[in-house]
């Protein structure tokens, strides 16, 4: 099973650079395909959007959201609208083909706390998908 790891980043994001460096190292060691994708409207003419910010929209909440999320959305509508317009980076997307179906795990956000544990968990997850030890 082929696994690809994509990272959606912005050029003006210092946390993204740190994560890109680490993931480059991981891909060089394990042979996992890693693709950094620039997501910004600053340099491009077309609207580029990340995978996460659409989950704050009203349509997504009504279609796929849980009851708790819907209740929260009605309470804090202006906040969600602000989040919908802004984009959250970095967004890490682990993508694989499972018997003709494309499956995705989307991880949003980044923090330096427990950075090593998170990377270790990520490698474990990918090894579980490919059914081989990395």
């Amino acid at each position, binding site marked *: 099973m082929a696994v690809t790891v994509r990272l959606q980043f912005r050029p003006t994001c210092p946390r993204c650079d740190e994560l890109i460096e680490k993931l480059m190292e991981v891909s060089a060691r394990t042979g996992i395909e890693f693709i950094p994708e620039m997501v910004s409207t600053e340099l491009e003419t077309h609207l580029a959007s990340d995978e*996460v910010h659409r*989950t704050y929209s009203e349509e997504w909440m009504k*279609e*796929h959201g849980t009851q708790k999320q819907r209740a929260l959305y009605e309470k804090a509508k202006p906040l969600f609208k602000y989040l919908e317009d802004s984009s959250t980076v970095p967004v890490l997307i682990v993508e694989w083909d*499972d*018997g003709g*179906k*494309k*499956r*995705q*795990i*989307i*991880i*949003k*956000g*980044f*923090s330096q*706390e*427990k*950075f090593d*544990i*998170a990377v270790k*968990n*990520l490698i*474990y*997850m990918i090894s*579980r998908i490919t059914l081989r030890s990395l």
Partner: protein
Amino acid sequence: MSVTAMNDFVNFVVDAVLKVLLRRPAKEEVSVSLAPALNLVRSGEFAELRGRHAFYPKFLVEEGMKVKGQAEGERIYLSWRELASDKFFEDVEKMFEMLQKRKQ
């Protein structure tokens, strides 16, 4: 009735029945666009038809199918905090168990 007469009679009946069953209509009422396709089907050469359908496939969507929901169900959203937690191993195992159940 002698045996030869009996045989002749049976042959005559069988011929008549076969003529009725295997008759061809003198003039077929088929539209111009369908005629070449029907000829291909009759001659047993489906390759051209098959190719045409391969390039222009038709997808059937039944009523009540939730295409959007299925497409969204393939995605799992996590936060970095969840990825960095110690119990992440258990969550991953549970997730793959669920995926295997869905396959079966």
